[in-house]
């Protein structure tokens, strides 16, 4: 009575396989549509690879000092543009030595909650490490990960996700 019914389970798998095969055509069609979209987005200069390069959602800590940097999917590596932004932040922090900051790390919605909390923390720390190499004391920097809990863009598409994979520098005082 408690024996596993292999036959039934196999049927389940076969049914799923059939479904997947049937959906393949649809997916191929969808891919064409998507790649068309992706090209049009690239041409507007909002994403490089899957890193956001636009200015939507970006705020400024001071004139010419953007508050956030963006990341590729599952990555915490700083891009050339991100390093440039962080050098500007470091210069601004050196000029305003009384200011302390919180680095808020975020992930997109396409990952499990707990892993994304760790990933957000890793991203914020990548920004912190870079600021420290430009002379900002770790005493002035705290780190806070929100994982995928606080997206700026509620869309379910690659562009929205790219805006959400970010580390935001927030004045703490």
């Amino acid at each position, binding site marked *: *009575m*408690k*024996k*596993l*019914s292999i036959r*039934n*389970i196999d049927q*389940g*798998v076969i049914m*799923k396989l059939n479904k997947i095969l049937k959906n393949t055509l649809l997916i191929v069609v969808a891919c064409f549509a998507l790649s068309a979209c992706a090209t049009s987005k690239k041409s507007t200069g909002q994403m490089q690879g899957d890193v956001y390069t636009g200015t939507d959602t970006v705020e400024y800590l001071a004139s010419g000092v953007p508050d956030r940097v963006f990341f590729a999917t*599952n990555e*915490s590596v700083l891009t050339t543009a991100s390093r440039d932004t962080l050098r500007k932040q470091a210069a601004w922090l050196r000029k305003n030595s009384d200011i302390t900051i919180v680095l808020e790390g975020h992930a997109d*919605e*396409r*990952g*499990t*909650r*707990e*892993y994304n*909390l*760790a*990933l957000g*923390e*890793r991203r*914020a*720390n*990548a920004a912190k*490490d870079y600021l420290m190499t430009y002379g900002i004391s770790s005493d002035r920097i705290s*780190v*806070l*990960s929100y994982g995928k*809990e*606080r*997206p*700026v*863009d*509620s*869309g*379910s598409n690659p562009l*929205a996700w790219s805006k959400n994979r970010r580390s935001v520098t927030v004045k703490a005082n």
Partner: protein
Amino acid sequence: MLRYFFAILFLFLPFKGNALIEVDITRGNLNPLPIAVSPMSIDENSRSNFEKILNKKDIGSEISIVVEKNLKTTGLFNPLNKDAFLQAPDIANLKPRFEDWNLIKAQALITGKVNFVDEKLRVEFRLWDVLAGKEMMALAFTTVPTNWRRVGHIITDKVYERLTGEKGYFDTRIIYVSEEGPKTKRIKKLAIMDQDGANNKFLTLGNELVLTPRFNPTNQMVTYLSYFRNLPRVYLLDIETGMQEVVGDFPGMTFAPRFSPNGKKIIMSFAKDGNSDIYTMDLENRIVEKITNHPSIDTSPSYSPDGKYICFNSDRSGYQQIYVMKSDGSDVKRISFGRGLYGTPVWSPRGDLIAFTKLHKGKFYIGVMRTDGSGERLLTENYYQEAPSWSPNGRVLIFYRETKTDDKGEGFSAKLWSIDLTGYNERLIETPTDASDPSWSSLLSN
């Protein structure tokens, strides 16, 4: 609140062995067992007493409805329409006329009687095999009247166990995160409800972000992540008293908490300088131990039921995969090798399987594999779903699922779902608000 007293009287010893009806729960059930749940009979005096106390017109009938709904959700039973019942509840409970029940194709029959005794609710019930014309089980319970729904759940557990040979999961509760508001500013509260969605209650007010609540083995404590004062830390909450405390004194974010099987430790991740490792804290002597020591992300730890092993999520290979180690952190072995990313491993209460979330080619799957990583089986596929939690008998998984938003970023929702280990019987669990991060309690009584 969970310490209600239940007196169980065995009227008769359960019938032993022989060829009575059985329900096989190891397969997707295409022919659910036709079962008749006769309304519990009740005398006029008891009925009016309970009406005064509980504001329910016929508590006997209400209890049988709880049983009937529970049985239906399993997908293993097909409760028959009461309109077709020929025999009156009180007479059926004494001695069913099996020909009558056979006529409406019932193979099993549940009858019962409710009494008001010394301000208490006394319920007796019997399970009958209609074809064999025999009684399979007879039990009686006495409890406070407000416990009437739990009586229905316990009856279902007994019937389920008698017919399937395995423990039930009906006298249980679900703790979860209630969600409201726009996706960019979600308000989240801890909430608790009975397994069937009744008695929903909020445990926090929504002033701070809360995530991933999990029960301790006795279901009186919950460990979860709270962003109280913008410091994400693992907390411990006593459900009865509402008392809360931070777990440990870590100089950074702690997250992904769970209890050890004996309830004496909390296992969790601690993130520092971009690296998350797994730690335990003993709740009695407060001793903290570092279990993993690796520059990658190590998170989502879950103990095996014997406490000897821990499965967890790590990206030490470059991507999220599932690993198993001894509970002291030694002997780390990767067990997930299929295509895609793997997260949220949870060890089955039976010990034989690990449930997980898998991300592959833009789709999310809930699946199970054996503890050595073999026999991977995907149960359900969707746009987004994660965080499976086992029913206490290891036969059902509850998880949450989110919808894709439209072009304007609207239409977001998060709901709780359950699915049988067989991959059949996928069901939406109704909640008053949107919901995520469900965790299933163990059986409240046995």
